[in-house]
């Protein structure tokens, strides 16, 4: 298990290196006039030239890349070109905000999808059809439309929540809960739709296995068979989907944070990418890339914990 973990971590580092190198080259090859982008139309050509000189963007891309890499390896990702904030501070002050929404949405979608999936698999008939219709709808409707709908109904008309903003948990737990409820709901619906199908299918497959018939013949209750044995067996594939969904939810948070004006990674991802804020985008590439590597590794380890048959020795 240790060798497996180390191997995965090393491959993750190589992956990060490749992704960041490609991203740096793509961002810089199409960068255009960086100084003008930062200073806008009012600046004179002389001021723009001075800005470009200060940023060193007229140097060859390869040289800048190794300069960036050298600093990045020491944890120095530079300063945002557009907000003058250090990239590390900009990202890590927002990482927790995004994780609170994404982890919240993962937990909520995992729990609800499991309940609905098991219910559909056990009841079949109309319940199964209903869950499948809900899953198709949830999958088909874009997250941003769901977000706008939720804001209009629950914030602007019913006034149950505030339409924008984020309250940190340390300031007020109920305020935090209130500020993340709609974003989590908006993110969760699509994820539930994806996971519920997997849970349903896995449970139905598991229920047909010989060992389930054996358990029934031994007189175990149906609830015990499903929740203690079938679900555990079906958990692996569902977890794999959940892992994919977690990564997808980080992407989904980009739009949802924008709509709810939440100061998370999504919001700066949009603005940094649109502006061509190379230092910030590079920091985001590395941090989100590392997050993906770590989540995938954790899911592999959890799957091994859940089902000894897939455990890597």
């Amino acid at each position, binding site marked *: 298990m240790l060798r497996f973990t180390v191997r995965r971590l090393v491959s993750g580092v190589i992956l990060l290196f490749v992704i960041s190198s490609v991203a740096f080259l793509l961002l810089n090859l199409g960068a*255009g*006039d960086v100084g*003008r*982008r*930062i*200073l*806008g*139309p*009012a*600046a*004179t050509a*002389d*001021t723009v030239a*001075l*800005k470009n000189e200060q940023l060193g963007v007229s140097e060859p891309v390869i040289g800048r890349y190794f300069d960036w890499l050298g600093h990045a390896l020491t944890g120095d990702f530079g*300063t945002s070109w557009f*907000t*003058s*904030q250090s990239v590390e501070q*900009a990202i*890590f*002050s*927002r*990482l*927790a*905000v995004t*994780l*609170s929404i994404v*982890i*919240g949405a993962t*937990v909520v979608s995992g729990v609800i999808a499991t309940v609905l999936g098991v219910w559909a698999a056990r009841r079949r008939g109309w319940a199964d059809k209903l869950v499948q219709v809900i899953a198709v709808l949830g999958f088909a409707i874009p997250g941003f439309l769901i977000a*706008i709908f939720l*804001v209009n109904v629950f*914030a*602007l008309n019913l006034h149950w929540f*505030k*339409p*924008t*903003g*984020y*309250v*940190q*948990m*340390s*300031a007020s737990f109920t305020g935090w809960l209130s*500020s993340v409820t709609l974003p989590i709901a908006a993110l969760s619906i699509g994820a539930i739709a994806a996971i519920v199908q997997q849970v349903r299918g896995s449970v139905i497959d598991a229920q047909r296995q010989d060992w389930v018939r054996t358990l029934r013949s031994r007189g175990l209750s149906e609830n015990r068979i499903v*929740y203690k044995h079938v*679900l*555990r067996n079906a958990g692996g594939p569902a977890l794999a989907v959940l892992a994919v969904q977690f990564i997808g939810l980080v992407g989904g948070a980009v739009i949802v944070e*924008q*709509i*709810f*004006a939440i*100061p998370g990674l999504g*919001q700066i991802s*949009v*603005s940094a990418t649109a502006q*061509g804020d190379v230092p910030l985008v590079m920091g985001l590439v590395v941090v989100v890339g590392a997050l993906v590597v770590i989540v995938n590794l954790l899911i592999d380890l959890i799957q091994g*914990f*859940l089902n000894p048959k897939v455990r890597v020795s």
Partner: protein
Amino acid sequence: MFHWKKAVVILTAAALALTGCTAAGSADSADSSGGTLTLGLITPVSSFSAQGANWANQSPYMQAVYDSLLKADADGTIEPNLATEWSYNDDNTVLTLTLRDDVKFTDGTPFNADAAAQNLIRFRDGTSPNASFLVNLADAKAIDDTHVELTLSAPDPAMLTYLTQNAGLQESPAAFSSADVETVPVGSGPYTLNVGETVAGNSYVFDKNPDYWNPDDQHYDKVVMNYYADSTSLLNAIQGGQVNASTTIDNTTLDQISAAGYTLSPIENNWWGLIIGDRDGTLSPPIADPKVRQALNYAFDRNAMLQAFADGNGTVTEQIFPTTSPSYDESLNETYDYDPAKAKELLAEAGYPDGFDLTMPSSAGFGASNFALIQQQLADVGIRVTFEDLQVNDYITALVSGKYPVALMALQLDPTDWQLAQFSIDKSATFNGFHTDDPTVQGYITQLQTGTQEEAETAGKELNKYIVEQGWFAPWFRPELNFVSDANTDLTVQVGNSYPYLWNITPKG
């Protein structure tokens, strides 16, 4: 044995632990009592350093923490601020300012003439988008603690106005070398940045400066400035009552904003239309002929352009000077009534009876469908337009470097004629991309710079008339920018600035 319930509890606890460990600002509801003012803005702070300060939509951030040497009232009239008196020498090349002697920066450093001189030189040599405001500043030096002398390389009629804006902001010299100079401002302004509650790029929190020298300008105990990146979140915040006052992005949302109980305060601060820049015919020989440029002006139905681009909110115009300028001439707006037949006639007279081909830039930032309207209106008079699509910022770079003979643009209406000339008319102006050097135009600009007030006003009027008749531009309209305020907030819009000045936003009554 795996326990689902335990796993859920652990995952939830992990989530809570992760989310509780760092700070994030709150875009909490607005307290409309006068205690807290919550503002909506459409741009975050690019730099809190006075040297690199932006203005326009970023002016509230700067005005919260910094004082400027001079102050402009809502109609642009210069008033005292940190400088109580000012005077020029006879040829307007030496400006002497008398400074207050009772002001301290929030770090305890006293404000004096030496600090003022250092700030002016730093701004001139820095990379603020408006660093060119002080391009004529040859030197600034302290005569004594309360007098600073600015030596100009040439008279600059807008210098006093510049000193009311970012060029006049005063930062503690002790902060110049700080590692946090870009993110932690140290000024003498009415508020101080609450770094702990601020989330850069999202929400900026300012606390009242208890030692401020001019408490009359402190209308609130706390000011929160929230940045909204798109019109949807801004509209939601306004409809949800989360801001007391805000700028707006999209004129199509104004009905919803009014319905939410907000008062609209319109202002026209820029003009939209074509920069017909290639006046010497370098890239497109037909453009060198004034008749062709006039034809371009006759070709457009300005009311249709206003409707398409700004949902009908604004005023059609044929001149680039603002109504507040002494050079503005209402009669010039009857120079080019929409007349495609007249346009064709002028093209024929210029030797282009079958029209000509024209390459123009386009960008999604201006609304993709609007370019089809431009193409159609020019096609109606025989000008066949091919668009080359660019990113917004590449678009601006292309314009200022003279890459396209004709281009759509939205340009600011500067508060003084001199500024406007320096920005878009003068041979070295940023938006005179081809650097057209017309002796008549330069003569009027020299009069603006060195003439008496009467001579300058006459020259401004003549300049405006000349460039309209010569078709230097094809202006269409001035769009309305609407600033909105709730029932508990009063405000006065600022001539020549996108955002009202902070001290002009007050509790109702």
